[in-house]
């Protein structure tokens, strides 16, 4: 009995198709898993189903009748509740307040605290989180407990269809087991559940049926257990190869001291004992699922994180890097191309020239005064080198396209001739042409002697650009793939913790 049907839904953001011909059928009393890589369209689909954004084309049918949701509140009223990845909890309020935030029980016009507390306790019990005290402040709870509260909050709304978007990503192993039990119980009670996750073993454990998304399309729908992991992975990846990558250089001098060496680096619970070596001329990639500590590793190396333990050595010398300014210093020569170019890489209202020269100002000025002639010359050189397309160097950086903006971020750092280059997902959201220019550039920089450490969520990039790939899982390097070992299967299976020997997975028996 179908609760919700998504038929031929399309959604465009600017010129990019986030969803194309998306189809999904959710039935009561079943857990429907949705799989796909980053950018496959899963999040957009969820937002449409939960009423956050409207679809451009296609229909959504609730109990067979077409509906359209003007807001999340409307979707909630229809019984569709979503547990989002981004927590919607109010940190300074207690758990009970958060669970009952939108519709608290009232008495004489005021919030009935006792009834609210009972309601919260019921919801927490239903979510398998009885140990959370309803009066605890959300900001005092660790991330894992907060996610449980988020689930309880969703359940308190009495949904018919519950959507969980990567809901277990922040949970501890013990909590994950509890959540499985809860979800199975809800299924038995007749709820329809849509479950999005990267983790294959979860899908195996929970799902009744699966739909795979790739490039905005639903490419496969099958009953759980009727496809091998390999087949699933192949469907998730699809045929996306866009061209040839520049050849890898062979001249890496491994006898000299590594340009960058990390020994037992740790930070809070996000980085757990990381050790690695980076030689001049190498391009090393960081792989693994989102949020396994890759971003934190790059920030730690660049001096942004406080309270790191372990050692970092540059050219064999131990260094303490406590700020980006120190990292940029001529004796270390580190550069970081950050994750979000709009908030971390560029000052968008400022001009192209000002953005490009910003990191190199010390070299371009005498006694604090900027030498405009030198600045102009250096800026023009970089603009030409990177083929930045803009109406001159005095227009605002915000007026450039995404690809050209990213070139500005890279160009800014090229101006200081860095010896160690850290990149945090540099080609996310950029057109194919610019991507290839970036790959060429990285290879050339490596050939000229830079050491490059490069986090990417795009498997093709890791395969095409990197000499070695370090796959990170839960804050530590789980696997190192070298040269020809770097394949899609190896990357995906290491990241999904499928075991060290990919290619040897049998189809499992179907669920009852």
């Amino acid at each position, binding site marked *: 009995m179908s609760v919700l049907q998504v038929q031929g839904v399309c959604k465009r953001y600017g010129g990019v198709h986030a969803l194309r011909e998306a189809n999904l059928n959710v039935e009561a009393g079943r857990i429907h898993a949705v799989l796909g890589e980053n950018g496959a369209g899963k999040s957009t689909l969820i937002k449409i189903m939960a009423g956050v954004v409207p679809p451009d084309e296609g229909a959504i049918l609730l109990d067979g009748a077409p509906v359209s949701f003007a807001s999340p509140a409307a979707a909630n009223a229809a019984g569709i509740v979503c547990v989002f990845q981004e927590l919607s909890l109010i940190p300074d309020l207690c758990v009970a307040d958060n669970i009952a935030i939108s519709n608290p029980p009232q008495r004489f016009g005021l919030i009935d605290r006792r009834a609210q507390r009972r309601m919260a306790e019921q919801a927490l019990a239903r979510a398998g989180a009885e140990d959370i005290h309803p009066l605890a402040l959300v900001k005092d709870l660790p991330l894992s407990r907060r996610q449980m509260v988020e689930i309880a909050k969703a359940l308190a709304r009495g949904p018919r269809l519950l959507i969980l978007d990567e809901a277990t990503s922040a949970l501890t192993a013990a909590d994950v087991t509890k959540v499985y039990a809860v979800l199975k119980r809800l299924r038995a009670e007749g709820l329809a559940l849509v479950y999005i996750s990267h983790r294959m073993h979860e899908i195996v454990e929970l799902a009744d049926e699966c739909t795979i998304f790739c490039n905005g399309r639903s490419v496969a729908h099958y009953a759980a257990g009727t496809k091998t992991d390999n087949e699933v992975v192949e469907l998730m990846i699809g045929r996306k190869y866009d061209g040839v990558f520049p050849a890898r250089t062979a001249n890496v001098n491994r006898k000299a001291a590594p340009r960058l060496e990390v020994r037992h680096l740790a930070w809070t619970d996000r980085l757990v004992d990381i050790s690695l070596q980076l030689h001049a001329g190498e391009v090393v990639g960081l792989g693994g699922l989102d949020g396994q500590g890759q971003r934190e590793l790059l920030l730690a190396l660049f001096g942004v994180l406080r309270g790191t333990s372990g050692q970092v050595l540059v050219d064999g010398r131990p260094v303490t890097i406590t700020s*980006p300014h120190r990292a940029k210093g001529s004796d270390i020569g580190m550069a970081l191309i950050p994750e979000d170019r709009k908030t*971390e890489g*560029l*000052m*968008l*209202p400022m001009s192209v020239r000002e953005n490009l020269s*910003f990191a190199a*100002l010390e070299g371009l000025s005498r006694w604090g005064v900027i030498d405009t002639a030198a600045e102009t010359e250096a800026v023009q050189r970089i603009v030409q080198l990177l083929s930045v397309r803009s109406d001159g160097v005095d227009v605002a950086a915000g007026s450039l396209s995404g690809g050209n903006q990213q070139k500005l971020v890279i160009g800014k750092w090229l101006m200081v001739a860095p010896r160690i280059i850290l990149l945090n997902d540099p080609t996310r959201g950029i057109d194919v042409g610019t991507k290839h220019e970036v790959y060429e550039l990285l290879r050339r920089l490596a050939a000229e002697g830079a050491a490059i450490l490069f986090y990417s969520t795009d498997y093709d990039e890791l395969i095409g650009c990197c000499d070695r790939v370090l796959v990170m899982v839960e804050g530590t390097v789980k696997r190192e793939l070298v040269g020809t070992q770097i394949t899609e299967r190896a990357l995906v299976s290491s990241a999904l913790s499928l075991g060290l020997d990919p290619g040897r997975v049998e189809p499992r028996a179907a669920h009852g």
Partner: protein
Amino acid sequence: MRNTAVTTITTMWRRIDPAVLAAFGCIVLLLLLGSLYSRSFLSPEYLLQQLKVASFLGVIASGTMIVILLGHIDLSVPWVVAVGGMMATACTGWGPLGAAMAIPVGIGCGVLLGLVNGCAVALLRIPSMIATLAVNAVAQGLMVVHTGGFSPQDASSPAMRFIATGHSLFGIPNALIVWVVVGAATIFLLLRTRFGRTVYAIGNRESAAYLSGARTHLVLILAFAIAGGLSAFGGVLLAGYASKAAQAMGDPYLLPAIAAVVLGGTSILGGRGNYLGTVAGVILVTLLQSILSVMQIEEYGRHVIYGVVILAMLLVYGRGRRHSE
């Protein structure tokens, strides 16, 4: 040298906001309206007098502008101005050596207070509004103790009186020359130095400036120190003009300084602003004040009009974003 000036002027010209043009337009409008009331509003003597009075506000507003460009605010202006005036006059009372040191000492005290502001904001991350309010309160406390609660009796040094009231160079008031020098230095600082570039960067996106390896803490502290020094310098000038300092002499300058900066097109959120605009804003505010008093509009009217004008300009230029954007 000429190249520098030409580059600077062309850079400034390119950045001209419609707001700056609007501000200058308002000045012209005000003068025309005033001239309907009395011919003398357009006389050179009157205009020169206004520019002289505007110079005091102009010096103070230069410091305020730098802080606002950072995306912060300096509410310690009232008592830092008073500190500047009172310390300078106090110094004068210590004999000829003291008189020679009066102006630097006055400015120096302002720089010190500005450093405290800067450290609180940059290192302790206390919101600038609160930190500067606290420094203002402490400065007031210090001055009350210093003066014994009475009006300070010390006189200003001859040097102070000279720069504030004298005329040289074809009868141009010295105060105006001082403002021009301060203004030129500010423009140079903001447009041609690493420091100034970083100020704009911090005001636009502090995280990006930090991640680009800029020493954001240092720039913040320095900027507040400069603002403190400029506020105190304003106090020194005022004390020179009146030949002595007075209790609460800085109080009438906080709101007009902020108004002048904002009316000149500088965004209250930081990162955007042209010094020419501040010049226009300062002249606008001074003219407004003058015309209101000549037209014998009561003091209360002045307060109301100030507030309303600032709000009106902000509603046109300084609005935030909607949730859905």
